[in-house]
């Protein structure tokens, strides 16, 4: 990944659009966006976004780097792919949003928020055990807000937890793990290697 062009203003960056076109997964198709707004109109959680995808894409063209990369748009995307299916210009909206989220983390724009914290907990479990463990993911997520907040959230949801345990949806023993954890580690190491290589080229 090449670094974005140096800021020419606090808020606006002339080279940002070109940088997104070249570095963000699916960004090469972003130029085709004709601002029809079908993506934003189709988005089931558009109301929870700072900016709908249409507006976010125009902000990219306008060079509003800070605002785009700190937006919650890509974090709230549920990957339902409705926008991708409907886009008349075949812009892969979901991919672009996913990679924009990754870029905002890499560039240090993503402030810890509920979504990123949950994402981190989820990924920790997947990476460590090769599986997601409801109890540990939830615990790690709750306590990422601090001890007091963690206990409070845990108590608030005790009833749900108890229900899940009774029906066998959550367990209190050792976390389930995949058999070949070494294999998983090798896969992840390879993936990291490829990413490293690609970002340099």
């Amino acid at each position, binding site marked *: 990944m090449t670094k974005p062009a140096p800021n*020419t*203003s606090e808020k*606006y960056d*002339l*080279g940002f*659009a*070109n940088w997104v*076109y*070249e570095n963000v997964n699916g960004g*090469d198709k972003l*130029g*085709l966006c*004709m*601002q029809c707004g079908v993506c934003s109109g189709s988005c089931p959680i558009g109301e929870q976004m700072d900016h709908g995808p*249409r*507006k976010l894409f*125009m*902000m990219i*063209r*306008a*060079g*509003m780097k800070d605002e785009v990369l700190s937006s919650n748009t890509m974090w709230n995307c549920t990957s339902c792919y409705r926008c991708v299916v409907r886009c008349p210009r075949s812009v892969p909206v979901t991919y672009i949003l996913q990679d924009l989220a990754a870029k905002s983390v890499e560039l240090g724009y993503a402030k810890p928020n509920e979504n990123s914290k949950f994402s981190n907990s989820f990924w920790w479990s997947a990476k460590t055990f090769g599986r997601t463990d409801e109890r540990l993911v939830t615990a790690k997520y709750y306590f990422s807000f601090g001890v007091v907040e963690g206990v409070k959230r845990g108590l608030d949801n005790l009833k749900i937890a108890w229900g899940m345990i009774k029906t066998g949806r959550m367990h209190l023993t050792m976390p389930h793990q995949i058999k070949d954890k070494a294999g998983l580690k090798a896969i992840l190491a390879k993936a990291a290697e490829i990413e490293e290589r690609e970002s340099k080229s």
Partner: protein
Amino acid sequence: MSDRKPGVYLCKGCGIGEAVDVGELEKLPASEFKIGTCKTHDALCSDEGVALIKADIDGGDINQAIIGACSHRVMTDKFSFNGTPVIRANLREQVAWSQPAGEEDTQMLAADQVRMAMAQASKTDAPSSSAVQELVQTVMIVGGGITGLTAALEAAKSGHKALLVERSDKLGGWANKWSKRMPHLPPYRGVEENHVGKLIAEVEAHGDITVMTDTMITKTSGAPGKFEVTMAHGGSDKIEMIGAIVVATGWRPYDASKLTHLGYGASPDIVTGVELEDMLGDGKLMRKSDGQKEAKYIAFIQCAGSRDPDHLPYCSSVCCGVSIKQSLQIKRENPDASCYVIFDELRTPGTAEEFYREAQEAGVIFMKGKVKSVGGDMSVVYEDDLLGQEVPLNGLDMIVLATGMVPNSTNPDTEAAEEEMNKYLISDINPAAGVSVAGYTGDTPDPVKRPEESIPPGGSILNLQYRQGPHIPILADGFSDSHYICFPYETRRTGIYTCGPVRRPMDMAESADDAAGAVLKAIQAIRSAGEGASVHPRTGDLSFPKIGHDICTKCRRCTVECPFGAIDEEEDGKPVINESRCRRCGTCMGACPVRTISFDNYSPSMVGDMIKAIDVPDEFEEKPRIIIFACENDAYPALDMAGINRQQWSAYVRVIPVRCLGSVTMLWVSTALESGFDGIMLMGCKSGDDYQCHFIKGSGIAKERMSKVGATLKSMALEEERVQMEEVSIADSHSVAKVINKFAATIGDMDPNPFKGF
């Protein structure tokens, strides 16, 4: 022609026989006009019916055929008898198909249609010839750019000699400066090589094309088929005889120094699109200011001066494509470059949309909004329509102003002289005069606002030695007067055709197409001049105006009003008609205060007799009569079509087709009022800058004349509302019946014309 032998032929087909009593009509010629020959047939256009007429002509019984059947606009091939005058009475479209069958009023209308045709025949002769002797076949092309080069090739390929005149020292025009050209071949995606060099080589190699560079036209006189053109070349004059002229003088870029509000002049890196072409030759695009740094951040500002009421009020049409082309060129050379195209509306008609998409795929950044400010510190602030906020672009390397096209309808190299002739340069019709328009129920549209500097500075191109001055007339925006849709190449000077950007803004591919069209028109003009026939819209018409010089008072109204400058003046003011410049509209005839201009088959007395031939019932019968002078180009066909659609209108109306409303003389209006007609309507084409008039200003002149009729009516103690003018287009067939009925109702509410029965 004293020995007119008319014969009347009535048709009973297509519902005429059911709608009216043809047997009654058959008695009219003998009883009222002493015409012996009158025959009826069930289908006159059948072989048998045509043979019936032909036998009478061949047998010498008749030498004029009056045919009471369908409209004169149809079946012209059937009812055509080797130059024998044919007069048609419209009993089908405007009687049988538009009036209730079997009614008394329908029968009266049919009888009047036959009466009018017989009166018309009594003043109709076969036209005599006015063919140009010693016809010249050479086509002269003025301007050696893409348009002129293509025109020369097209003319030469059609078998004509071509003379290509260029004011500069080399051929090619602006195209010489272009690094590349916009796509004109499938898939219309890529930037193409500039082909002007090839085109020049092709022209120079062609044996039938004579190229004259460094040449100015100092004088043009004559008429189609026999123009005499004087040219200055290398300090001496040269005279050439020319058949027809194609003007392809092209354009000049809009003066960017007037665009200080867009930052022009504030920095050397703020350039126009034309200036950028020079910098886009080979290799990297360097900044102009230092020549060292490669331009990486480039903003294009669209509509720089165009579509701006303070500068060029029109769209220059090519700038969007040019900016797309230039940004693609920059992106191809340097993929790291960021090209911003800031547009209000991006106009990419037809295949240009493919080119636009290519640029989007290549990562050119398009931003919709209005530019607020451009700074010498290389910043642009624009109001983004899609974000709803102002967006600044700071630290740009280059700002490109996509400036527009100004037509070379004048020669920028020569001084503008003749102030007083400017009224013939710009359209001399007042587009502000209000007139009701068929189909509109509300107020008339706002008049065209004339920009203050509508005339591109410079002298005349051809320096025509015409009564109406040296110019080819232009429209309000400075482009040469032409009808964009129906007759684009026609100018108001017959035999002289404009094409390319002098006519409207266009790109290289469009200009080449345009050149081919104009050359075909030029060739048609030469051939028509050789036959003594008219060109568009009365194509093939052999009649031409004749002036009775013994009566003429030398008032000069005809020489002033002719829309085509066809009539010159001798020193003592005697009008001289140049037949091959004439388009046969009859505007001179309508202008003449002593009615001494007439055609062999169209004259003030002919229509006057037609009016008088109509039977006007006295006031006690309570059957008012309304006369409509309908322009045969649009209004009359619209009426025919209304009939075809079986629309009905007032049976009190009598329609007389006229060549153009410009040919309507005030004599006809007074004749009609004196004959007891209760209302008069002039039905013709739209006038003004967006005219529909096929003779360009005929309907406008009629409008001016009609504006003075009110006072005359008042002096006769008649209501002003009795005489009206309506603008009708050929597309108004659905509303034309309503227009007539509304007028008929207005007239019906008035007292009868007190002159009835006098």
